[in-house]
């Protein structure tokens, strides 16, 4: 693959443009992007984690959630130094697993699936900037049409948010790239 080529364009200046929290000088700007469907029980772990980080109100930290990743998330991703994708997992280690991500463009057979690696690739290709990125996969257990996390998932969420908070603090203690 050829190296990323940043493209200079005029972004539409309309409402709701990119979301970037201002960070103290020299501190990393951190994005926490939780995704999943809170209406499907433990699938809401990602949004729940993002909501908890948002309530901390930390300077330089942006947190929001969505049902699933979308290509325009690349705009926000490219605007931060460190990005945490937070999702529920149906399999894998409890209470959570952290994986460092690399950009990897993919093509699925449906638009209903966009992977975080593809978002990173899009950010890199389009903006010439790929932040350091991690996937925090919090183990869930049940995915029925219920808008409440299972007790096990709630326990996992608590531990996952604790480690996420620590990692954000750690990133912000380092000089911004």
């Amino acid at each position, binding site marked *: 693959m050829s190296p990323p080529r940043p493209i200079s364009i005029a972004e539409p200046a309309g409402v709701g443009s990119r979301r970037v929290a201002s960070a103290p000088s020299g501190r990393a700007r951190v994005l926490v992007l939780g995704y999943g469907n809170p209406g499907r029980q433990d699938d809401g772990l990602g949004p729940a984690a993002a909501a908890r980080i948002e309530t901390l109100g930390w300077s330089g930290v942006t947190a929001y959630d969505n049902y699933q990743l979308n290509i325009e998330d690349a705009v926000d991703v490219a605007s931060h130094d460190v990005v945490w994708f937070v999702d529920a997992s149906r399999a894998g280690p409890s209470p959570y697993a952290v994986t460092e991500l690399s950009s990897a*463009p993919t093509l699925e057979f449906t638009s209903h699936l966009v992977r975080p690696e593809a978002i990173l690739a899009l950010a890199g290709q389009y903006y010439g900037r790929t932040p350091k990125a991690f996937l925090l996969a919090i183990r869930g257990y049940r995915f029925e049409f219920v808008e409440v996390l299972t007790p096990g998932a709630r326990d996992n969420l608590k531990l996952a948010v604790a480690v996420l908070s620590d990692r954000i603090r750690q990133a912000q203690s380092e000089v911004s790239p």
Partner: protein
Amino acid sequence: MSEVQVSLGPRKIVIDPVTRVEGHGKVTIRLNDAGEVEQARFHIVEFRGFERFIQGRMYWEVPVIVQRLCGICPVSHHLCAAKAMDIVAGVDQVTPTADKMRRLMHYGQVLQSNALNFFHLASPDLLLGFEAPVSKRNIVGVIETFPEVGKWAIFIRKFGQQVIAATGGRRIHPRLCIPGGVNQNLSVEHRDALRNDIGQIIQWCGEALELHKGYVDAHRELHATFASFPSSYMSLVGADDRMELYDGALRAIDAGGEPIFEGVHPADYRDHVIEEVRSWSYMKFPHIRSLGREDGWYRVGPLAQINCCAFIDTPLAEAARKEFMALGHGGLVHATLGYHWARIITMIHCAEVIQGLLFDDDLQGTDLVVAGRRRPEGVAIIEAPRGTLLHHYTVDDDGQVTGANLIVSTTNNNEAMNRSVTKVAMDYLSGREITEGLLNHIEVAIRAYDPCLSCATHALGDMPLIVTLEDAQGGIVATRVKE
């Protein structure tokens, strides 16, 4: 990563993409004793529990709750449920401000969703070629060759999201609609911000159309024949059979363009469309009642929206429609890849409608809700990005939902997707080998419809693409897994 497993048993092909969304699909290709493709089926595990989940909820909650159905189309479900609950609330006509706010949101939704499909999902196949290496055949590969496509992809979609945020109060989980009206009008600040950008969006949609036409010009035969077949079509249309995506009457036409039914009010859909359950699929198979089970299937979505309408009442989209319909030499366009061209025309139409609405002072009106005398039942239909979407609810005297029936676009296209996969298998399967090329072509056919795989849940999990070869007796010959 792909893995091929070959056994020496009888012959059958199964493609089983278990995506990280809960609903998963599987393609089965059955060979006959002569080793020829006999039949193909695209299975989708559609989660039906949602209809039960709605039961017992208060009717006025439903427009918000149904957004849980889909991560790509929450707005479409929000609007369709609201229209159905208008009926339940005894409201046949909402105020001009409410109607136009909903329309603005809807056309923003269709614009951004179609942009996602075309630029992110379809353009790698079309602009880089079906046979391009997987490592290159993606949106990043497209941007390397066509940098402007990345700009269109992100910002047309982002503009649509901004329309949703401006009308719904927020980009995610918007709450514009309530039975009988809307919660808010459009602020002047939001209106002016959107006005600033809409001209650019229309221009980019037009440029995307020109790029796509260049592809079609260079691949006339492939475009006309790939995964294609004559079919019936169904869509909403407006007055004089104009294109209408938000509110109209159902129209169905046969492969020759002759009406099967028209002017059908949503409440009467069961007189014309019947749903069938088949043992081998979790999906329902709707078909046109008068044509019966075997012949009553049809297609919905952008291709159907263009084929079913007589004209489009916005100038740029109408000019594009005429050029597109010329492919049919006076008849309909049946090309499955024509979905993509039609999708861009619909994007242009949406952008033009949005532009018109942004200069309509009714959007700043303050008459937002009307009330009526409660009714026990409500049915509504809209044209969602992937086609006709129907919500049908029954409600008891206490306002609790007692029944729900949803027919989503992907369900309407169920049989059509089977036939497209069958056509691809017939054209590209060679011998007993499940090639990467066969997989690619099947995926290209499915992408034209962009099925919604019950994306109500997203937990990380397995998402392989599994292909199995099976013979006429059902024995498996080979399996291929694409991670």
